[in-house]
Structures are given as C-alpha cells and as structure tokens.
C-alpha cells in the first residue's frame, strides 16, 4: 500500500513513503534525519481556522501540525499508537477501551487526560461545529472515564471501522478550546507562533513533544499564494521550499526543474468521478449509464492530464482496501463499440445532456469532461459542458440538481464503511444522485456492522458488483494532489486523508 498501486507510471518516489506515520523517516534514505531549519511552504489557501475537525484543504497543513489524534495508520492499515497508547476493541465490536499515553502535554503545559478526549468527542458530535466527519462519531452512544487515563466508548451498533474515527479524534485541550476557530488548543509537534490572516502563518517546534526526537524542523512558515503560476514561480525562485495545491498543468514544468522534486500525494485518498442523476432522463436509464462508463477514455485522461501519476480505475477505493478486487477494477475499459451498442439498446441515439463542472472546485475536471465529450460525439451523444462558480456547484451538488456532475470524493483510503456512510454519492440514503435500493441499503448496513473481515469483504464484493451494474457514480482515476519541493526536503508522508505529517520532515541542507 505504501507504493502507489498497480500500473503507476510515475517517475518514482524514492524520497517519499506514503501512508506511513513514524516509520517514514526511517524508511527514506541512508542518512539519518537532521535537526533544525525552517520549512517554507506556500499554499493557494490560507488556514481557514484552527478547528482540526474542520477538514477542508485550507486546513491540511494545520491539522496534524498543531494536533495529535488518538491513533494513526501504518502502511498496512493497522492502527498505531499516538495520543492513545493501547486499546481493546470488544469482541462484539460494540465498545472500545482506550488507554491514554501518560505525560502527554498540551501546548498550554497541562497534561492530557480522559476528560479532554470526552470534550473532543462531544465537540465533533455537535453538528453546529460543521465537522465534515461528524457522522463517524454519531454512533458513539456514551463515553465513560473509569480513570483519568482511560476512556471507554460504547456504540449504538457494532463498529468495526471505529479506528477511522479514532484516527480523526484530535484531542483538544478543553481548558484552551474556548474559541477553536480563532485559537488552537492542541498538543501537536508544532505550536502556533503567529498568524497574519491572508499573509502567513508561523509554527514553531513543540520542544516538549512526546514523540521525541520528532519533530526535526525548528519552524514551519506557511504563506498564501492564490495564483498557481505565482505559486510555482515562488518555488522556482527559491523563496519557498515546498508548494502544494497547484493544478496538474504545472506538474511537467516543475518536474523538469533539476532543483526540485515532485510527487503525488498518497494515491487513493481522493478520486475524480462523474455523478449521474438517476431520477431524470437520460440517466434514469441504466444501459445509458453503463454506456457512459464505456465511453470514458480514462487512460487518455490519466496520461495527458494527470501525467501518468495515478492509475485509471472504475472502483472508488485503492488497492489494499477491504473493498478492492483486482478483477473488478477496469471492468469498464474504453470501448466505443460497446458504448454505442448500449446507447442503441437504451433507445437513446442522438440524445443530449448537460454536464456541470466548476474549475474553482476541480480544476482538472474540465479537461476530463472535454475528453468524454469528444468520445460521446463519436457515438452520436451530445454533451454540453456548463462551468459554474464554486458556491453554485456546491448548491447543485447538494440538491442533486444536475444530469451529470463533475465531482470528486475523499475518504477513499479509509475503511469502506467510512466512505459509504456519508459520502454524498455513495451513501444509501439522501444520495445526491437519487440512487437508492433496499438491497444496497441492506448490504451497506450489514458490511458496516459485521466484525469478521472475511465476511465484510464478501459483502463489499457484492456492493462493488451492484455499483458496477448500476453506475450511478462513475469513478475515473485517483486525484494525485501532488507536492513539489526542493531536493533538500526529506521525510514527507501523508495520512489517510492526504494530510501531510510534517513531524517527520527534515532538511538535508
């Protein structure tokens, strides 16, 4: 799982090991990590706020920098201790007992205890805080603290995917979390020194961090540079040593620069997809949806727009996932003859529809739609592309007010139950494509509550077959979300959301 999966053409990532916490630095290179230095990063977005439960791209470089979660994942998707030292999941999967690491200090100097974990869970459960993963915590019925170092969580049903929730349980300092949007309250490897909104933010090493000798860096300075060309120029001029969040159109020129190294983020955290509204023509016709799936030239998209950095796929999870099956991946290869035959069978020759995209939300999505449009024209189907503003796209997405929507989804690298539970195009109820079926609902619910991995895997296979048959949401390829940096930057890895783990980063010069 650490390497990027089947069929990746990338020009190698010898300096980076993905999806690994802690062991990334050890795995990287012969030389041991060096202490010191300031990492200068530029991103197109400023930090939105200091709420670690508010996971938007803006907060990616803040989340695991200022905060610790209870567990992390290794490259085999096994949970490893962070703020939690050990745990026991009950055999029936309905509760878990967690022991906290002793002597773990918040930035305020106070020692973490069980009451902070309770506070944090209550915080994310509170829907008014708008956390994107509050759903993972709604299953927690009660939280008990038999002693200051122990937390017992009880769930309303068996919860085998609970470690995803624990991976995203950032422990807040309950005494300092009075206004989490404006002021952080964490225990993470770095502390906030100064924030000039819209300009820059400066983090400094937490000298009392529990995971010694980490962090290696003295400080991280993050600047906001909205324009992508300026972002790349700032890296190339040497003013900063790392950038992220740039469009793929800059991948090749940055890669050609001999002073830089460029690599995709963890493959399989996010995917491009085409969402089809199944309650209105022409996508109320299953055969037509399948035809679209055969008419997508994924290889061309991956090669020309994504620079071969990721594999094409028709499944919404990466290899290594419980729900991934190699024989099901690429069932839909590019085949215009099959697409044409299906369109004819559906009785929808010469039909037309509108595809909505927003280049503000998914910059490279427009290119994918143009590739699909050209293919569909060859089989007599007309697709009109409509580009809308980000807020409008969000509105249409949420309301399911579209025929086809250029879309992307995250959570794909977590337990499949985490994806199917709340992702808007995959969840069994209130699905934005309008898709629902009793069989799908039953399979999703059963798979999320079943403990035995082999049984869960069999259920996910059935779900995959259903997805590939009904095609209400068509995955196309993983989204590489690449990093570009100076050659002196070592040890970079990300977590399962794609959030960089900066405590392992060090500068070789």
């Amino acid at each position, binding site marked *: 799982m650490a390497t990027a999966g089947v069929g990746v053409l990338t020009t190698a990532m010898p300096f980076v090991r993905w999806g690994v916490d802690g062991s990334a630095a050890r795995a990287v290179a012969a030389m041991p990590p060096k202490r010191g230095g300031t990492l200068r990063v530029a991103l197109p977005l400023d930090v939105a706020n200091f709420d670690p439960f508010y996971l938007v791209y803006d907060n990616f470089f803040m989340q695991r920098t200022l905060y610790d979660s209870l567990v992390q994942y290794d490259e085999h998707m096994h949970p490893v201790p962070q703020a939690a030292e050990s745990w026991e999941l009950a055999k029936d999967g309905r509760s878990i007992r967690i022991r906290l690491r002793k002597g773990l200090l918040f930035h305020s100097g106070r020692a973490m205890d069980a009451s902070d974990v309770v506070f944090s869970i209550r915080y994310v459960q509170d829907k008014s805080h708008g956390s994107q993963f509050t759903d993972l915590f709604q299953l927690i019925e009660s939280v008990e603290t038999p002693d200051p170092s122990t937390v017992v969580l009880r769930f309303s049903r068996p919860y085998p995917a609970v470690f995803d929730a624990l991976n995203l349980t950032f422990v807040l300092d309950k005494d300092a979390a009075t206004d989490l949007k404006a002021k952080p309250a964490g225990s993470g490897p770095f502390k906030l020194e100064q924030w000039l909104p819209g300009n820059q933010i400066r983090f400094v090493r937490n000298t009392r961090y529990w995971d010694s000798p980490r962090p290696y860096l003295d400080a991280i300075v993050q600047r906001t540079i909205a324009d992508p060309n300026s972002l790349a120029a700032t890296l*190339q001029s040497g003013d900063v040593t790392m950038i992220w969040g740039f469009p793929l159109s800059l991948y090749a020129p940055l890669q050609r620069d001999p002073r830089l190294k460029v690599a995709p983020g963890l493959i399989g955290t996010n995917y491009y997809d085409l969402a089809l509204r199944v309650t209105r023509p022409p996508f109320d016709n299953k055969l037509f949806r399948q035809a679209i799936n055969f008419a997508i030239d994924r290889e061309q998209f991956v090669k020309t727009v994504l620079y071969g950095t990721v594999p094409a796929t028709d499944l919404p999870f990466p290899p290594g996932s419980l729900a991934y099956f190699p024989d099901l991946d690429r069932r839909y290869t590019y085949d215009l003859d099959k697409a044409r035959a299906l369109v004819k069978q559906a009785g929808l020759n010469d039909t037309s529809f509108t595809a909505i995209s927003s280049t503000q939300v998914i910059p490279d999505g427009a290119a994918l739609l143009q590739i699909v449009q050209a293919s569909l024209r060859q089989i007599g189907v007309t697709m009109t592309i409509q580009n809308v503003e980000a807020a409008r796209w969000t509105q249409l997405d949420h309301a399911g007010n579209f025929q086809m929507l250029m879309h992307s989804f995250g959570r794909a690298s977590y337990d499949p139950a985490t994806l199917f539970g709340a992702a808007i195009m995959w969840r069994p109820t209130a699905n934005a494509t309008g898709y629902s079926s009793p069989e799908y609902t039953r399979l999703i619910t059963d798979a999320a509550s079943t403990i035995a991995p082999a049984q869960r895997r069999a259920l996910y296979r059935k779900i995959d077959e259903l997805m590939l048959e009904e095609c209400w949401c068509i995955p196309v390829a993983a989204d590489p979300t690449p990093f570009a940096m100076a050659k002196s930057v070592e040890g970079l890895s990300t977590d399962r959301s794609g959030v960089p783990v900066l405590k392992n980063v060090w500068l070789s010069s």
Partner: protein
Amino acid sequence: MWRYVLGRVWQVGVVLVLASVAVFLLIRLLPGDPALVYAGPDASNSVIQSVRVQMGLNAPLVTQYLIWAHHALVGDLGRSFANDYPVIQLLEERLPATMELAVAALVLALLVSLPLGILAAVKQASLVDYLVTGVSGLGLAVPTFWFGFVLILLFAIRLHWLPASGYAAVTADPSAFLGHLLLPASTLSLPVTCALTRFVKTAFADILDMDYVRTARAKGLSSPAILVRHELRNALISVVTVVGLDAGRLLGGAVIIESVFAWPGVGRLLLLAILNRDYAVIQGGLLMFVTAFMLINLLTDVSYGLFDPRVRIGGAPTG
C-alpha cells in the same frame, strides 16, 4: 469652502446607509448558502441547519439587518463565518497593504506620466511624441496580470533581483518592504500610467495654445515660471479629476494584483469572502470600499480649491 465640505460629508453618510442596505440584500440574492459552503456539500441537512442557526441566518432578513446595522454603528462589523475573527480587525490588518499598493502605484504613475505627458505635449508631432503615445497605447492594451508575470519571470526567476511574491511590513523591514512592493506596484500602475500620460499630454497641449500663456511669454516670464504658474496649475485641474477616478480604479484593480503577487490586501480578502459567502466580511469590506470611494471623491473636489482660485472664492469653474 467648509460649508461645502460639511455638505459633502452629510451626503457620504446618506450614501453609506443606502449602500449598506443594498449590499446586505444583494449578497443574499447570490446563489449559494453560507452554511452549506461552510459545512460542505456532503454534510447532512441536520448539520447544515445547525450551522445555519449558529451563523444567525435563520432570523428574518429585517432582523438580521437591524442587528448588523446596530452593531456597525458602534464599530462592530460582525465576525467571519470561517475563523470567527472580528471583521473590523480583518479589515484593519489588511487595509494598510492595499493602501500602500494603491498609493505606490499612483505615485509611480504620476512620476512617470507627468514628465512624459508634458514632454510629448511640448514636442508634439515629433519622434518623442510618437514614441510616448505609441508605448502608452501598447501599455493600455496589455493585460495587467500578464505584465505582472513577465516582471516576475524577469526580475525574480531569471535575475533574482526581487522576490516573486509576498509582503513585508514597512515597520518590520523597510528595505524588504520596498523590495516586495516594487513589482506589484509597477504592475498595478501600468494602465493608470499609460492612460494618465496620454491625458496629461492632451490637457497640457490644449493649455499651451491658451491666450494667457502667450501673454505670459510676451511679458517676458521665463519658461519654468510659465510652466509652473500658468501651464501646470491649469492642466492639473482636469488631471486631478482623472486621478480621482483612477484612484478608485486602483483600489479595484488591486484585487487581481494581490492574487498574482500574494499581497495580503483587502481586495483578496473580499474576493475570498465572496467565494465563501462570508456575509459579514463582504458587507464590511464593500462598505469600506464605498467609504473609500466617497472620501477620494471628496478629496478630489476639495483639491480643486488648491488649483482653482475660482472654487476658493466661491464661483463655479468655467472652461
């Protein structure tokens, strides 16, 4: 003169109230729900509703406006939906950067356009005139952001003379401040410099033919004295009008330049607030721009008094 100024100040107040209502209503007409934007499209309806209540968006529109206006009167413009920062603090932190950029661009524009325009006017129909007119025409046609990128490519990436982007506070490091300011200010000033050069040339050329200039020459006044006392002061009346209009345009144009050069000004703050439907920031920011425009207009009108004695005495300017 003072009665005139006071009358204008009263007008500013009325316009601000009307603008506040217009801004309040207009942004709510934009498609897109701030609670949905904040929580994200995957959020359940119950989450979105909880966030909406937290943002105070469930109350009737009139109530929302009155609460906001009441607080605004005492300097509280509300808080950002995203990070809870007081809007007034966000604006205070970002305004200096925009003002510095706009003022620097204006100063550069004047430093270049006045001498070049006067030169072209004095040497009309010469090679100098054609060069100045031609180059300024080209400068007007060139997209400003492209010009900015060319400057970055040349001075930052190739020559490493100046930083590609960013900002340094003048109080922290004056030389770094100037280094960061030079490229964005030059970029922002390009269209204004070119337009002003052509305008100065035209205004000056008209005055050169005036009777009072011929009379001054006949009286034996030296050329510099004629230039300053007669030609420049009269030309500046119309130039000041254009500068007043351009100053407003500079504030607006700063939005693009702030994006290209990562200049942390109010323009960029406002743009992001609009994308994110951060109502309080949009309202506060737009009102601030309205106030700025009105103050610039007021200053422009008052400055006529400096150049035109007829305004000071109380008669209307003619000709």
